[in-house]
């Protein structure tokens, strides 16, 4: 089976990145504990380092590690700032809005009429399942202490989260809103995978896959990239093995979901009738509405990742806008030139691609860089969806891989290329001094993310395939998942 071969090939390719990682991993055990146990005041990472450069807010983009922030708080108790806190609540609402109903509409419009509710149910299922999970242990495994790869159970049941304290996320916003802000990221990431496997996977299997995947991929990555002791958290962890940067989730969100989506859709197989039947979007109108909501919500995602209503947030706001629009324009123009017509789906896809690509870079790059990244986003993701998919023949139903996988990977690397300490002093010598060799660190982070996502997804997917099974019966698939799996139709008959 060519599909099987493709997965093997991919795993091989993925593993070729592994050696340096393995090395890196070996070295950490020795170093990482040190961070946790000792962490002397003068080594407190981001919090102090960035302070002189940007007096009002210690961390420029990511959480001050809990253990680091605590002593600092004692010395000079950081007060909840109403403005920063207001922005963080707004941002959190905006990121939830991206999934419900943004992504549900974007994806829902692209499937066939008979499957629209199944996609929406999967988005709702993500929100409703992951939220209590986050309370139970998800947040804790992602952000509470732990080693370089995963947190511990210190904040299980959100124990120890005090709304009147700050420092878990940044020194100026409530720890409580930080928890929910991060939750909204944990909700949308697996929901993105839904796009690749749409129209042909059992609801029970989707939910089970996501449940396991959160432990196997999401929590570790949230911890590794944004945790104070994380393996590749350049901005906060002086001892990080990979000193990479990721402003709002290029690796954590888009790459993990994009690459997992590819693998899962390969293992799952193509939709019945793929390449033979019409599988046109049943409502480009819904898709366009979802795009608008995604764009608007993304301001919470990117500018909210500044964890303050400050200059860095504004930088993220500006670069997000410029990249999204530019990529939308480029994609539509590419269609116009190469296919004769600029389509609404082209504009929408380009906009989302631009948003994906700028995500890891949003608070690290300058305005003009974001325009250039937008051009890349539009052009490369267009090519991935229009040519690469055709050439390789996998059935990534709604192009999760083409947009989030390819775009996320490209964005992570370009972030290394365009990152600018003048834009974000945390990168510079006054901060964490991350500039030297940054591109290589980004590539390492990209490699680790691909390997991990591909391998973990393959294992989970095969495990479910041989137990619960992945696909519904042919009859169910042909008559549509909405009726068969949810007992409802999207529209009155």
């Amino acid at each position, binding site marked *: 089976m060519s599909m099987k071969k493709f997965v093997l090939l991919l795993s091989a390719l993925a593993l070729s990145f592994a050696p340096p990682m393995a090395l890196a991993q070996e070295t950490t055990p020795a170093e990482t504990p040190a961070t946790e146990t000792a962490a002397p005041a003068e080594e407190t990472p981001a919090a102090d380092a960035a302070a002189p450069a940007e007096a009002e807010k210690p961390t420029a983009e990511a959480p001050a590690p809990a253990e680091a922030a605590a002593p600092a708080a004692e010395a000079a108790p950081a007060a909840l700032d109403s403005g920063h806190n207001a922005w963080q609540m707004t941002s959190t609402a905006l990121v939830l809005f991206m999934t419900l109903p943004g992504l549900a509409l974007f994806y829902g419009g692209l499937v066939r009429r008979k499957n629209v509710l199944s996609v929406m149910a999967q988005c709702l299922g993500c929100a409703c399942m992951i939220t209590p999970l986050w309370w139970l242990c998800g947040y804790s495994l992602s952000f509470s202490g732990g080693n370089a790869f995963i947190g511990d159970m210190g904040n299980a049941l959100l124990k120890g989260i005090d709304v009147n304290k700050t420092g878990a996320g940044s020194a100026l916003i409530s720890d409580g809103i930080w928890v929910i802000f991060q939750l909204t990221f944990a909700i949308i990431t697996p929901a993105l995978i839904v796009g690749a496997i749409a129209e042909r996977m059992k609801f029970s299997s989707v939910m089970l896959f996501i449940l396991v995947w959160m432990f196997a991929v999401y929590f570790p990555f949230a911890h590794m990239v944004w945790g104070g002791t994380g393996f590749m958290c350049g901005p906060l962890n002086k001892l990080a093995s990979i000193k990479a940067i990721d402003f709002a989730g290029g690796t954590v969100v888009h790459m993990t979901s994009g690459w997992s989506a590819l693998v899962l859709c390969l293992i799952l197989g193509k939709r019945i009738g793929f390449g033979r039947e019409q599988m046109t979007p049943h409502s480009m109108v819904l898709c366009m509405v979802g795009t608008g909501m995604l764009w608007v919500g993304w301001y919470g995602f990117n500018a909210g990742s500044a964890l303050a209503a400050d200059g860095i947030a504004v930088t993220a706001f500006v670069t997000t806008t410029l990249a999204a629009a530019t990529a939308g324009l480029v994609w539509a123009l590419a269609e116009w030139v190469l296919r004769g017509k600029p*389509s609404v789906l*082209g504009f929408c896809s380009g906009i989302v691609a631009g948003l994906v690509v700028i995500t890891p870079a949003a608070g690290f790059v300058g305005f003009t860089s974001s325009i250039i990244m937008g051009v890349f986003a539009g052009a490369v993701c*267009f090519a991935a969806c229009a040519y690469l998919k055709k050439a390789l023949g996998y059935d990534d139903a709604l192009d999760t891989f083409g947009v989030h996988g390819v775009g996320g990977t490209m964005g992570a690397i370009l972030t290394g290329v365009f990152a600018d300490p003048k834009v974000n002093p945390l990168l510079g010598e006054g901060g964490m001094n991350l500039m030297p060799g940054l591109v290589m660190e980004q590539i390492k982070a990209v490699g680790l993310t691909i390997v991990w996502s591909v391998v973990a997804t393959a294992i989970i997917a095969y495990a479910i395939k041989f137990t619960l099974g992945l696909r519904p019966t042919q009859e169910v698939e042909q008559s549509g998942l909405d009726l068969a799996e949810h007992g409802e139709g999207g529209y009155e008959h």
Partner: protein
Amino acid sequence: MKKVEAIIKPFKLEDVKEALHEVGFEGMTVTEVKGFGRQKGHTEIYRGSEYTVDFLPKVKIEVVVATERVEAALNAIVKAAKTGKIGDGKVFVSPVESAVRIRTSEKDEAAI
């Protein structure tokens, strides 16, 4: 009685309806259908996937008429629906044995 059944281009519906009215046919039933024939459909491209939509939206008009008025209906339709371009459609005539008006239970010619 006969049923005169015409498959026409949707944007000609208004014209055909008026033409039928002019020659005295007030009642008719219209259905949205998809037509396959010599006229080619169009191609849609969604992110690189090409789909040939091979059917075309058409409208089917059904008028049940007294046998002696078939010609009148036919001519009215053909004249109003013609654009001269491929895909203008067809008119079919078939027998109808009886008709009833539900409201009054009137029969046959009186019913239509």
